[in-house]
């Protein structure tokens, strides 16, 4: 195998791509609910908008549209984190998330662009179950995952440019440059049995952690990057042991046990899944934010599309677990909204803005809702 081929297609510990997908998707969901949705009221105000790309033309995203896109993306993302991800679902998450920020310059946060790149990589990650990523023995399963290597190189390019702009501005640039180099070689650590490599890698991982620790921002960007650094640079054995413990229920209790009674079980799964798909979005009715109901209903339709033929061709319970994960996503959205100030912030900022524009009726309605959700 040529060195370049070995670099991109060589083995990596499968626990890493497995954990990374779930970590980023979970972060994305809660980041959307707690940090993006509260700012949704500003979309469509005054019928004015400028998108990131001219392709949007004169399209003006309204607050319900923006919140709907966020709800769709985040609930689908969390449902994929909770159960075995599906390539179509991940593609939909990537498209939804990218649509969310590209439709308006109101979202010009740099790391949202990076998350879109990551989601693009995730679409090509191996779709791993817990049983494929973690073994019963101490030896972590390995396999080829070029998209994981691409994920690491993407991160390396980001740090490279951070260092380059710092250098251009005459500022110290060695730390982001070390981060860039570390991510370039990170994917090779699982192919080597050399003690020197195994010992050095975790130390290289300290660089990105230190970088984000020393340059805090108001956003969740440092949390994303520190979490990613831990999953990429920690010894494979640690990730494997932690993952094996966390996925114990998934590997032992949630799997299909037998193939007996195929016809009867297939019909049970079919009706239970359909019922679940219809009722899951109902949870979002309690969220009381414009567009969220539509977003969650679209998530259920997307899930139906993802389940596809499995719904009526398989006796296995996989469709049912997908519906359960959708329920989990909708429930998590509701609980997060009910226990945070996100709704209060949304309605309060909407009321302040409506007052500024002289729309006092809309402001009064918004203020009333804000009072209802004051915590």
């Amino acid at each position, binding site marked *: 195998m040529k060195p370049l*081929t070995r670099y*991109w*297609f060589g083995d990596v510990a*499968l626990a890493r791509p497995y954990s990374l997908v779930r970590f980023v998707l979970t972060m994305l969901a809660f980041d959307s609910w707690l940090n993006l949705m509260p700012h949704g009221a*500003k979309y469509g*105000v*005054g019928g*004015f908008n*400028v998108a*990131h790309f001219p392709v949007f033309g004169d399209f003006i995203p309204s607050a319900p549209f923006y919140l709907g896109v966020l709800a769709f993306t985040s609930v689908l993302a969390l449902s994929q984190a909770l159960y075995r991800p599906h390539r179509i679902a991940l593609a939909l998450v990537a498209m939804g998330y990218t649509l969310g920020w590209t439709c308006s*310059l*109101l979202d*010009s*946060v*740099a*790391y949202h*662009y990076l998350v879109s*790149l990551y989601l*693009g990589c995730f679409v*090509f990650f*191996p779709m*791993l*179950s817990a*049983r*494929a990523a*973690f*073994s*019963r023995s101490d030896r972590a*399963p*390995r*396999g*080829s*995952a*070029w998209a994981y290597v*691409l994920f690491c*190189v*993407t991160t390396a*390019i*980001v740090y490279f*440019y*951070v260092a380059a*702009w710092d250098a251009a501005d005459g500022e110290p640039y060695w730390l982001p440059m070390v981060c860039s180099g570390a991510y370039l070689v990170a994917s090779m650590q699982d192919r080597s049995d050399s003690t020197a490599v195994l010992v050095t890698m975790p130390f290289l991982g300290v660089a990105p952690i230190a970088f984000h620790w020393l340059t805090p*921002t*108001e*956003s969740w*960007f440092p949390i994303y990057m520190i979490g990613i650094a831990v999953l990429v640079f920690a010894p494979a054995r640690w990730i494997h042991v932690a993952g094996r413990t966390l996925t114990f229920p998934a*590997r*032992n*209790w949630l*799997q299909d*046990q037998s193939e007996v009674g195929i016809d009867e079980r297939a019909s049970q799964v079919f009706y239970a899944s359909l019922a679940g798909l219809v009722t899951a979005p109902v949870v979002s009715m309690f969220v009381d934010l414009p567009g969220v109901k539509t977003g969650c209903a679209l998530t259920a339709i997307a899930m139906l599309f993802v389940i596809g033929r499995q719904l009526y061709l398989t006796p296995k319970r996989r469709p049912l677990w997908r519906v359960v994960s959708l329920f989990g996503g909708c429930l998590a959205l509701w609980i997060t909204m009910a226990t945070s100030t996100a709704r209060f912030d949304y309605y309060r900022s909407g009321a302040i*803005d409506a007052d*500024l*524009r*002289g729309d006092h009726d809309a402001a009064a309605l918004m203020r009333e809702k804000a009072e209802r959700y004051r915590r």
Partner: protein
Amino acid sequence: MRSVATEPPPPHPSPKHRRRSGLFIGAFLLLQFLAPLTYLTRNDAADDRFTWRTFSPPSGPACETSASLETFDGRREELALHKMIHRDWVDYVGRNRRVVVEAFLRKQCEAEGVLEVELTNHCEDDSRIREYRLRCGGERSHETTRTAAR
């Protein structure tokens, strides 16, 4: 008895699959390398999207903004920006973000009887006044910069 066997890892990619993946990898990396470099060719220095120059949300406005329009019958009207668009857009205009300024001026020209729209930014950091003037029907606004009188 419950099965706790490990599933096999994904198969190694075939040469054909490797070729296709290689093309995707090449295009994806090229995009990532070139996107930040476009900053060097941008006319608008305030536009640093996709460059990794900063990870913080955009800062507050650097300039105080005022706007006015002139109608065909010669009347001049002051525009209250905060009542027309969201304050985040006002901040963008205040940071001389050209694409937003252009969109705002064009939007005002959509009203009936408007001949010309003017937007002025009084910038404290470099003591300059930037004026953008769009004659309705024109393609792009005319920008002038002058130093504020002390």
